[in-house]
């Protein structure tokens, strides 16, 4: 192998230096890493997955199974599994082999290959099961996998785009270009995607004339004429989904551009032309994995694209016509070429090859290869006498087992495949809606047919959209009809170490064993042997594998069928799929209007239900626990100030608002007087408590609901669903005003004194504004509302004003309260205050089983005679069971011990329930807890055992409210 003095689409004036396993090498601008390695005579590029056998490059593009390398770019980016055939060479790259120690030429684990007979398919399943898989797991995991991930963060930027188009053309070979050309001429919006940087597909390495000009000219003209089309080079369509939705991976990285180096497109196309071509499949014979055995199509690409001749003494082995072009091209490049054709009469191609000095051996196949660290010889034998081969010296064996149409996207989209016996290939069966095929995917090897099919597909898409193509189809001289393929699935000799899947080390022996063990379904074969998994996805191994299975199970290939192709066609990095959705953008949090003030006040910010809120306000010298205790104590001693702006504010208005909400809420809300507030539960139809919150009646036809911060969207969706689907005759409308208002609670015995300093026209006297009432008016000149609701059990005032003025009011309240020792308190402190009062926290104290009766809220069911959501479910035998778990308080025997949430409450070793909340109560000077305990309300005073991770303590069951059960402090 060597770089030829001329040829290829590389820029020989621009030398790029890189390293391979520490060795300094160089290539040219336009090389892939693989072509540069080949030009530098690097024969071994990796070690195989299972047996650690040395492996060289087999392919030149996405089909490559071996050339997976560890690659570091000069800018710090690192890819532990770079596919060398797809990576454009850049100066400063450092590449090295993977799955080998100390290096790929001398791999200590290569000894594993000597024990191959003990490593059959299913070896791991059969061997590492006694005493248990876990015994072996860590050691096996160390040996498994290719490459090592570096722990540092990914330096790449990724992006996502969504697009819609009239026609997506997949593949810019002759068929795809003809389709795009026709559709564009009719005014369609066209997207043309091809995974290569250059346009033209196989025309890049197979010279032809189209429309009486060199094909490269036709490609250039066609591209110039694609007015307004979206051209996506280096873009692989990796997935086809329902209704012509497609996932595209665009490689945008160059040495100059690292921004959005990979971009995923989600494209919805009215029509799609699949001009995806075909992938050459290998021949299967003993020793076919030796470095130096390559795909004939790949050898041609290396020659024509990169000016690299992969061998000097070459044997080409084939069972079809396509490899002849490779043989002739190699001979023209100066190689000594002989060709073994499995067919007895190769036909006219043989004459052409012979005229170029290629020695053609009909009815001959390879039966063995040899050479340490790379190919030295090939044994060729007549098909009729496999036992008497002739040994031929060779440093390259170019093989072709026929073409497999790239039907992946059709199959992914739910399309069926059919086995075509004469072509020995799976072809797409009936097209899915809006889908067209053109070119080699249809099984045709003919350029003329590909151009005609492409043109027809573009015209058909145009026709479906009411447009007409008047352009003439591109033409090319008819080629000589090919000599049909003769299938050669494997060589029938005792040596069954014939590789079917190079990447996963699946051999003919493994398929035979799977068949013998009755893994007769092709889907089972795949999973048992790992055939076609990882990068391959059926590109090279699929047909050979199932043909072998068919032979071993005595069935026809059509009856064996194929596995379902699933996305992605090529590996897609998780970073690319995530796009910008990572870090702060992964799940964006909402900020309170006074966010900056909280930070300035030392808030410990945490996320609660999608909002970033102060957990507490930590002072110098305090732990978080200290801060929580201080804040909770201050709210009871003097006054606290709390930001409740994230509490939901859903307005429900309309003549039927009262009737509708009465259907929705567990509690009666129709008899609520304007100006009054009621605490209500909202149930699911299953009777389970979904949310709790206060409902305020603003006017006879207008309510304001305050669901929990994290449930606001859910409550609104639930109300809308009921209104639209079951009660559409009720006249009302919803409006979520949560973000429009800032709400601050002043709570504590001195809250009244602080409010008295406020400039407002709202009468704050207890007669005018009692507990569970609100008034509207002006607060410091701004429209607002003051409500008497309390989540702390203390006298509380909740002030609501337009969000934009929130920070000003926040600072104003702090200033007004300074003389009364007002203390800021956060969510965690509020959680202590509410636990002292035994107030439930939905989702913390309740779960997906909790009914209102479990919380002791039974009055509405008894008194509310109208129907409401969930009512019927509260009357089932299960809901009426006397031993349901009840919400109760627990007082630990040791007042300094705070039992963990989730601890079980046991009696005689059996769990009777668990703890749902627990904390140190500053007001009581001891630990308290809440929990759900079987028939708990009937067992107050009983002592239970608290069990957590083997630790046992004791606690007494009490009522949930640990402090001020009469509620005197609300009015204090």
């Amino acid at each position, binding site marked *: 192998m060597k770089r030829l003095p001329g040829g290829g689409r590389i820029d020989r004036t621009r030398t790029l230096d890189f390293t391979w396993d520490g060795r300094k090498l160089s290539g040219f601008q336009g090389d892939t890493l693989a072509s540069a390695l080949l030009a530098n005579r690097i024969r071994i590029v990796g070690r195989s997955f299972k047996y650690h056998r040395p492996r060289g490059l087999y392919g030149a593009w996405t089909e490559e199974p071996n050339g997976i390398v560890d690659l570091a770019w000069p800018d710090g980016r690192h890819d532990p599994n770079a596919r060398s055939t797809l990576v454009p060479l850049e100066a400063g790259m450092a590449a090295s082999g993977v799955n080998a120690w100390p290096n790929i030429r001398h791999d200590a684990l290569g000894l594993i290959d000597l024990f191959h007979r003990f490593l059959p398919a299913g070896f791991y399943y059969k061997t590492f099961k006694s005493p248990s898989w876990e015994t072996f797991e860590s050691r096996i995991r160390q040996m498994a996998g290719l490459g090592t991930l570096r722990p540092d963060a990914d330096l790449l930027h990724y992006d996502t785009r969504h697009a819609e188009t009239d026609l997506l053309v997949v593949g810019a070979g002759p068929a795809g270009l003809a389709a795009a050309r026709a559709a564009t001429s009719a005014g369609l919006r066209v997207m043309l995607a091809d995974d290569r940087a250059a346009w033209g597909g196989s025309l890049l390495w197979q010279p032809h004339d189209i429309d009486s000009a060199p094909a490269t000219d036709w490609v250039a003209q066609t591209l110039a004429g694609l007015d307004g089309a979206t051209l996506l080079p280096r873009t692989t369509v990796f997935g086809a989904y*329902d209704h012509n*939705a497609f996932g595209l991976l665009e490689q945008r990285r160059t040495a100059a551009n690292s921004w959005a180096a990979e971009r995923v497109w989600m494209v919805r196309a009215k029509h799609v032309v699949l001009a995806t071509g075909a992938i050459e499949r290998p021949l299967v014979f003993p020793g076919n994995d030796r470095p130096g055995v390559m795909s004939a199509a790949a050898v041609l690409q290396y020659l024509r694209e990169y000016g690299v001749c992969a061998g000097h003494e070459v044997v080409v082995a084939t069972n079809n016509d396509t490899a002849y072009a490779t043989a002739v091209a190699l001979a023209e490049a100066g190689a000594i070429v002989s060709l073994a054709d499995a067919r007895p009469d190769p036909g006219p191609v043989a004459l052409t090859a012979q005229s170029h000095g290629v020695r053609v051996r009909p009815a001959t196949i390879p039966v063995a290869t040899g050479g340490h660290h790379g190919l030295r010889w090939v044994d060729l034998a007549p098909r009729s006498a496999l036992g008497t081969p002739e040994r031929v010296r060779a440093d390259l064996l170019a093989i072709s087992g026929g073409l497999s149409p790239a039907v992946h996207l059709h199959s992914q989209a739910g399309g069926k495949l059919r086995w075509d016996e004469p072509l020995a290939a799976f072809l797409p069966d009936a097209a899915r809606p809006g889908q067209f095929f053109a070119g080699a995917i249809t099984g045709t090897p003919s350029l003329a047919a590909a151009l005609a099919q492409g043109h027809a597909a573009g015209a058909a898409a145009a026709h479906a959209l009411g447009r007409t193509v008047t352009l003439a189809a591109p033409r090319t001289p008819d080629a000589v009809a090919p000599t049909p393929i003769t299938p050669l699935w494997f060589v029938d000799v005792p040596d069954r170490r014939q590789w079917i899947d190079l990447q996963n080390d699946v051999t003919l022996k493994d398929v035979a064993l799977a068949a013998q063990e009755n893994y007769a379904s092709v889907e089972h074969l795949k999973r048992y042997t790992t055939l076609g998994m990882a990068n391959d996805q059926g590109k090279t191994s699929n047909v050979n594998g199932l043909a072998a299975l068919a032979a071993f199970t005595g069935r026809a290939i059509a009856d064996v069928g194929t596995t379902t192709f699933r996305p992605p066609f090529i590996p897609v990095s998780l970073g690319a799929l995530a796009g910008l959705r990572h870090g702060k953008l992964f799940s964006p949090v909402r900020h309170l209007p006074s966010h900056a003030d909280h930070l300035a006040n030392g808030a410990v910010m945490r996320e609660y239900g999608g909002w970033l809120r102060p957990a507490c306000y930590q002072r110098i010298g305090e732990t978080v626990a200290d801060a929580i205790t201080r804040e909770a104590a201050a709210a009871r001693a003097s006054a606290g100030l709390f930001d409740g702006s994230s509490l939901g504010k859903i307005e429900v208005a309309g003549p039927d608002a009262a009737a509708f909400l009465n259907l929705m809420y567990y509690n009666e809300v129709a008899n609520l007087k304007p100006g009054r507030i009621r605490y209500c539960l909202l149930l699911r139809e299953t009777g389970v408590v979904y949310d709790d919150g206060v409902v305020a009646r603003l006017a006879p036809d207008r309510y304001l609901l305050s669901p929990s911060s994290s449930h606001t969207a859910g409550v609104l969706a639930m109300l809308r669903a009921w209104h*639209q689907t079951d009660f559409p005759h009720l006249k009302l409308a919803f409006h979520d005003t949560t973000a429009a208002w800032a709400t601050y609670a002043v709570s504590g015995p001195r809250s009244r004194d602080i409010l008295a300093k406020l400039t407002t026209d709202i009468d704050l006297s207890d007669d005018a504004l009692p507990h569970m009432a609100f008034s509207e008016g002006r607060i410091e000149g701004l429209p607002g509302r003051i409500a008497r609701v309390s989540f702390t059990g203390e006298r509380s005032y909740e002030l609501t004003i337009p969000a934009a003025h929130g920070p000003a009011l926040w600072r104003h309240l702090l200033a007004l309260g300074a003389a009364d020792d007002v203390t800021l308190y956060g969510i965690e402190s509020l959680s202590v205050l509410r636990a002292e009062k035994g107030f439930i926290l939905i989702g913390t104290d309740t779960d997906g089983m909790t009914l209102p009766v479990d919380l002791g809220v039974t009055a509405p069911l008894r008194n509310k005679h109208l129907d409401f959501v969930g009512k019927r479910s509260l009357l089932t035998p299960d809901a009426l069971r006397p031993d349901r778990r009840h919400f109760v308080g627990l007082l630990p025997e040791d007042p300094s011990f705070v039992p963990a949430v989730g601890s079980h409450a046991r009696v005689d070793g059996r769990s009777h329930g668990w703890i749902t909340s627990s904390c140190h109560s500053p007001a009581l000077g001891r630990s308290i807890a809440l929990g759900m305990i079987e028939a708990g309300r009937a067992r107050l005073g009983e002592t239970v055992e608290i069990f957590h991770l083997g630790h046992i303590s004791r606690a007494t069951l009490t009522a949930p409210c640990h402090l001020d059960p009469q509620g005197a402090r609300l009015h204090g």
Partner: protein
Amino acid sequence: MLLIPCPWCGPRDEPEFKFAAEPALRPTSDVSDAVWADYLYLRTNEKGFHREVWSHAGGCGQFFLLERDTLTHTIHRALKPGEPS
């Protein structure tokens, strides 16, 4: 990813929508436990032609009836509530 024709907004990508329920009439509260349990928990989950209530949750927020094939993913039609079917 289905392409779903919202009766108000036109064809949109599936992620904009939410499946809501199989269409069912809400029983009155005097039905037996068994009938109520069926309403709450039993789904026909047809393979093939299926009628479902969906909402255009990420769009107009409206609920509608969708007739589709759960096997082939063919969308037959989308109906506004009350539209004759």
